[in-house]
């Protein structure tokens, strides 16, 4: 049967005018070569256009919150809608920016100046240019997330287990810095040593001006050791003279490790505040977070403590959090988190907060 079929096919090919002669075959080969050349040109053209385009990505998250805090009502929230614009200008130069619409931003300008219906906020979260001289030395200028600890940079909802951020994050180290930074990484004896050194306007001076002559300086160093699934330890510092003449010096420590399905992440920060004409005080915070992966589920617990002013008695607070994440895919996560807030001050009532959310990374 097979032989008959093959015979028929060869007869058909023999009879077919396009397979008739060697000349025809050569002509077809030439035609194919020409088509390949055209396709290659088209691919190169497409590549060129892609390389010259700005890539847009982003993330969005929505949540439902129920809290027993006095005065709070259960409700839904459109928390973030962020857009990232990135461009690789050439192999060494890159541009990056993030525009964030927070809390379902609605802005309306009217001649009366009445903005009572307006809500939410729009932030230029970051905007910077990078110049990569080598793996050991890169430069960044513009607005960037302050390289301090872990959560300050790795904070995007699709990739963190909770919508509720640890208490001290953004309260001791500033969230962003407007300035310039050098950064890099080097392999030393099997361990990667990473560093960031930066200078900026300071946390109360963003945008187009600096209200004081002092500049903030900061540094972060971390080492990724070749042990476990992941083992990283880091230290951060920041020094600034703020607009109200308070001198602020912050030190932080952080660690991240992965042992099989268990991930542990912890950060500590201590800020020393020295106002010119008031009592000095410290501000400190710490959290330890434990996550355990079971297939697409992540279960977790976090203990979180923060004291905004050690000069005051009973100013501290802490949160115990239970966490469940379901990773629908690498870009979609469903989260359920329950937080119990407690206060050192016995007159402040403890309360709990439950958040159910969906966070989506929009990709490129």
């Amino acid at each position, binding site marked *: 049967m097979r032989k008959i079929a093959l015979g028929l096919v060869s007869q058909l090919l023999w009879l077919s005018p396009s397979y008739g002669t060697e000349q025809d075959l050569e002509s077809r080969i030439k035609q194919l070569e020409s088509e390949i050349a055209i396709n290659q040109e088209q691919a190169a053209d497409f590549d060129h256009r892609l390389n010259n385009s700005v890539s847009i*990505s*982003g993330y969005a998250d929505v949540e439902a919150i129920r809290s027993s805090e006095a005065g709070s009502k259960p409700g839904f929230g459109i928390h973030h809608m962020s857009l*990232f614009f*990135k461009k690789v200008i050439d192999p060494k130069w890159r541009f990056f920016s993030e525009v964030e619409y927070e809390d379902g931003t609605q802005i309306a300008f009217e001649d009366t100046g009445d903005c009572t219906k307006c809500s939410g906020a729009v932030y230029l979260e970051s905007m910077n240019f990078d110049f990569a001289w080598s793996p050991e030395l890169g430069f960044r200028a513009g607005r960037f997330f302050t390289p301090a600890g872990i959560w300050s940079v790795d904070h*995007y909802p699709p990739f963190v287990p909770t919508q509720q951020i640890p208490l001290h994050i953004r309260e001791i180290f500033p969230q962003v810095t407007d300035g310039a930074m050098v950064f890099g990484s080097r392999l030393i004896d099997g361990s990667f040593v990473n560093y960031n050194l930066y200078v900026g306007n300071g946390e109360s001076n963003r945008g187009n001006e600096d209200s004081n002559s002092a500049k903030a300086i900061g540094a972060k160093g971390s080492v*990724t050791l070749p042990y476990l699934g992941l083992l990283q330890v880091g230290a951060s510092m920041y020094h600034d003279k703020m607009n109200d003449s308070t001198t602020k010096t912050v030190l932080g420590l952080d660690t991240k490790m992965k042992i099989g399905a268990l991930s542990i992440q912890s950060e500590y920060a201590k800020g020393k505040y020295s106002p010119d004409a008031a009592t000095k005080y410290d501000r400190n915070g710490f959290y330890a977070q434990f996550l355990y*992966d079971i297939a697409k589920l992540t279960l977790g617990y976090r203990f979180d403590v923060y004291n905004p002013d050690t000069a005051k008695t009973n100013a501290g607070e802490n949160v115990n959090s239970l966490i469940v994440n379901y990773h629908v895919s*690498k870009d979609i996560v469903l989260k359920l988190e329950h937080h119990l807030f407690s206060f050192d001050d016995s007159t402040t009532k403890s309360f709990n907060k439950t958040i159910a959310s969906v966070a989506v990374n929009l990709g490129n």
Partner: protein
Amino acid sequence: MRRSYVAINVMLSLMLLVAGEAFGAGKVAVIVNSSNGQGVTLADIKSIYSDQMVAWQNGNKIDVYNLPPDDVNREVFARKVLSVSAQDAAAAESNRRITNSARNPQEVKRDKLVASIVSRTPGAIGYVPVGEVEGKIGIRVAMTLE
């Protein structure tokens, strides 16, 4: 009776799930261009795919190629090299991209294209099913994972 029926159904579903996960997964070859003479260890591969090591010893940039997150061979690679699932590895890369901390962004291509690109690109590294490298010119297998 009803309980045993449910139990059998659950077990069968689990078996199918496990079989489904494993189906198609075999040996994975980590490949570099044949002009690249640098020895590549498992630790190097982990560092490269964790965005720590971004250049070869000669200083040339490493072009890193990944398979799509739903590819069974990426699952094998991620588990063996990075000790995480393919999904977690892909999420970590996405996180690096949106935090602007990706030093050497990775490309995602299908296996045939990865083999073809690596054979033509001196600084490239990728991984493909072993069958994809048989008889291919311009490729050196740096390591085989299974």
